[in-house]
């Protein structure tokens, strides 16, 4: 059914349709509206037979989910940013124990400096914790991915993180098609755990595993994710057949045929990029786009197949591995490693801490990529002047104070202006 609602609400309704049995809620912007919505639906009875638990921390949120999942309940929780880091230990534990928990990550930057706005730093920080990570481009996809996530997680007995851009998606009100309970029930079978805590058949879960078997345990985890590379497209196809929409899958391509330059990106920025590409195509520029949905498992084969035909690849990502560059770009590089005549990969770091990625900026950087591609990472809309001043200042004054505050002071009035316009949010 079509609705004009907030993304968070849409996700809450989709999750509710998945018949979660235990939901752990701990507030952190921008994920909060999702669990608020779920809490309301549990109270009103729209979600039946479900325990909604207000926990005291993200660490507890995932820990309670771990217990619930191990005891055979379909468990869900949501978090973001610092919250994900605070539960990091449990994040590894859930995947290590093979518990099919689904968690929404309202992607947000990580401090310091404290910043509540959107980027992918949180997802990247724990991308190798053994969870599968699926990135939503739109709120429709965000809602749909949760339904696929439970199916995927429970089939492989491995947790899934649905990554949704904070504010940009979670707080946006738009047209979303909410599926019927009957369709979701038909698509998502009841949870049948491969192992469960049950007095009828007691087992010990969570043994200490030494050097003699640890490698094998890890290998098997890795092997499961390689299986996911086959399952994710299957489930997306099945989803389309039943719900009539393209949602999920490993990746999607847009106007890549004959494209000499292919952009690779994840999440909500893809929409803006598509508009930009249309305009460039109108000017006859051979540009295409590959939208990555699955970051873990990383669809190396599928991505290579898309990229080899291009001359250059521009990876636009909302994260920075300080001292290394763009983690996504790095992963894309790996996908093209040892490929004869592989395209050159150019990295763009954009939208950190919520800075808007505008069509104008995209035009600038992509057009430049066509004529004079760069090596290393390009920081979109970086305020060179302020950076230069600060560097100069730091060189002069040893105790030059906190960089973030210094920069804000220099931005002065302009900062306030653009802040109000939402231009730097």
């Amino acid at each position: 059914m079509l609705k004009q609602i907030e993304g968070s609400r849409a996700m809450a309704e989709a999750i509710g349709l998945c018949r979660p049995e235990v939901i752990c809620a701990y507030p952190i912007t921008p994920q909060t509206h999702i669990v608020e919505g779920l809490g309301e639906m549990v109270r009103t009875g729209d979600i039946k037979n479900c325990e909604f638990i207000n926990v005291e921390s993200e660490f507890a949120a995932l820990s309670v989910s771990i217990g619930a999942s191990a005891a055979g309940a379909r468990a869900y929780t949501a978090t973001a940013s610092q919250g994900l880091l605070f539960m990091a230990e449990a994040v590894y534990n859930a995947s290590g124990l093979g518990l099919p928990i689904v968690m929404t990550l309202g992607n947000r930057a990580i401090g310091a400096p404290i910043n509540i706005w959107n980027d992918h730093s949180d997802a990247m920080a724990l991308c190798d914790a053994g969870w599968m990570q699926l990135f939503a481009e739109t709120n429709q996809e965000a809602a749909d991915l949760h339904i696929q996530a439970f199916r995927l997680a429970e089939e492989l007995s491995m947790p899934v993180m649905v990554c949704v851009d904070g504010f940009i998606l979670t707080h946006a009100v738009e047209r979303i098609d909410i599926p019927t309970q009957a369709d979701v029930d038909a698509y998502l079978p009841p949870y049948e755990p491969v192992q469960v805590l049950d007095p009828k058949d007691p087992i010990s879960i969570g043994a200490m595993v030494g050097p003699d078997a640890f490698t094998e345990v890890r290998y098997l985890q890795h092997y499961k994710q390689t299986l996911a590379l086959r399952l994710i497209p299957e489930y997306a196809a099945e989803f389309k057949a039943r719900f009539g929409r393209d949602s999920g899958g490993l990746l999607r391509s847009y106007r890549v045929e004959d494209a000499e330059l292919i952009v690779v990106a994840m999440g909500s920025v893809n929409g803006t990029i598509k508009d930009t590409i249309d305009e460039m195509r109108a000017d006859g520029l051979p540009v295409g786009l590959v939208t990555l949905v699955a970051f873990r498992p990383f669809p190396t084969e599928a991505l290579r197949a898309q990229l080899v035909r291009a001359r250059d690849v521009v990876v636009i990502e909302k994260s920075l591995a300080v001292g290394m560059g763009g983690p996504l770009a790095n992963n894309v590089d790996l996908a093209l490693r040892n490929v004869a005549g592989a395209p050159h990969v150019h990295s763009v770091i954009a939208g950190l801490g919520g800075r808007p990625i505008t069509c104008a900026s995209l035009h600038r950087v992509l057009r430049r990529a066509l004529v004079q591609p760069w090596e290393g990472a390009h920081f979109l809309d970086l305020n060179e002047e302020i950076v230069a001043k600060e560097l100069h200042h730091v060189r002069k004054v040893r105790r030059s104070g906190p960089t973030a505050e210094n920069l804000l002071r220099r931005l002065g009035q302009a900062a306030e202006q653009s802040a109000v316009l939402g231009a730097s949010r």
Partner: protein
Amino acid sequence: MEHPFAITLDVGSSLANQTGSWRTSRPVYVDRLPPCNNACPAGENIQSWLYHAESGDYETAWRTLTADNPLPAVMGRVCYHPCETACNRAQIDEAVGINSVERFLGDTAIRHGWRFAPPAAESGKRVLVVGAGPSGLSAAYHLRRMGHAVEIHEAGPFAGGMMRFGIPKYRLPREVLDAEVQRILDLGVVLKLNAKVDRIVERMQAGRFDAAFLAVGAHIGKRAYIPAGSAAKVLDAVALLRSMEGEEKPLLGRRVVVYGGGNTAIDAARTAKRLGATEAIIVYRRTRDRMPAHDFEVEEALAEGIMMKWLSTIKRVDEGALTVEKMQLDDKGFPQPTGEFETLAADSLVLALGQDVDLSLLDGVPGLAIKDGTVQVGPNMMTGYTGIFAGGDMVPSERTVTVAVGHGKKAARHIDAWLRGAVYAPAEKHELASIDKLNAWYYADAPKTVRPMLEVARRQSTFEEVQGGLDETNALYEARRCLSCGNCFECDNCYGICPDNAVIKLGPGKRFAFNYDYCKGCGLCAQECPCGAIAMVAEEI
């Protein structure tokens, strides 16, 4: 169900890990000798019969008891119970009232008319027992149960010896004594009364006895030379007490003085009181703490109004009065005369200065050794004359009923072995279960039950039994105060507190076993065993 590899395990799989290999010393179950058993002159297995009494199985308790001592009802009244003195519980609160439980069992047996099992088979041997006192009755009982034909030849008109002629009614009612004697006779022991033996060897030949056990006791009151006026009334305690069994009671007058400090002196004084003496005074040359009499008897006497005159000797007796010299103890604790004299009004004087043995029956028997008026015997209780054994007061030893009963049992075993041409070797004694082997924490605080006493007024005027018995509740309670020193009583501590579940419970009465596959040898079981029935021994490495 197929579990995920390694992180998930099937229950109980650790049984494959035999931690017994960690052990450097191993626990073992042991049985140690309880102090009560060790102290009993009659060699009773006290703890064992208490064990049965605790569970309310009084008959088994009684049968276990009488396997060693045929006179529990008597013992429960007259024994000075060294077992209670030795009892470990005395160091926790108060000793277990073993004696009172013994009396309870004895009385219960009489009430129910329990009888001894007859001998399994007749040996065809004949044994003569001279004297029907505790020692003789005990020997006769044991010998009979071993299958020998036994005849008791008693000089007196009744069986019981000192139990009858030495111990007053108020301490040992005669019907109790008679019942326990009769039960022995019912085994087929022949008792001949008024059959004084004057020539033992001849008597043996005449009766074709293969062996003899002499237990004639010590019935001759010691006399001390005291200048006495013609009309002075002087008699000895043994005679006094014996005469109590006769028809007419002795006339002692209103004021009676008893001379001596032993239990007999006390008995004499208390008897005098009951015979109507307004004053019964015990004169003793030393102080109370040096008195041979048992303190509780002194207490009872004082309670009954008996007066004591310490540090005094009697120098002369006249009609109605006697002269006493004050004494004082020298640094060695011996009484020395002071030269101070005083007169004491007295209608009669009873001498309680100990007893001598009438050895006339041994005249002309070769090879006997007599010393200090007693017959010398070997470790097997045999006198210098082959085939003649002796015990009780007539041999050197403490003169108590219990010791005598013990002699009877010991002699019987040796006589039995000798008759079979064998030598009796007593079983090896276990290590003593001293208090340091126990973990007293586990025992409840449970003070001893006090036996009821007849009120004083009646004690002064009648010969009713002074000390009452316990009812079943009290007896059970008292029995259950036993610590079971040195022997497992299945409290389940070891089974319960083993951190490695390495103790196997075998079920009621079967105790426990160690599972050395898993026992790490921590020693908790030994440390926490209440009764010291577990020992740690080093493993050979």
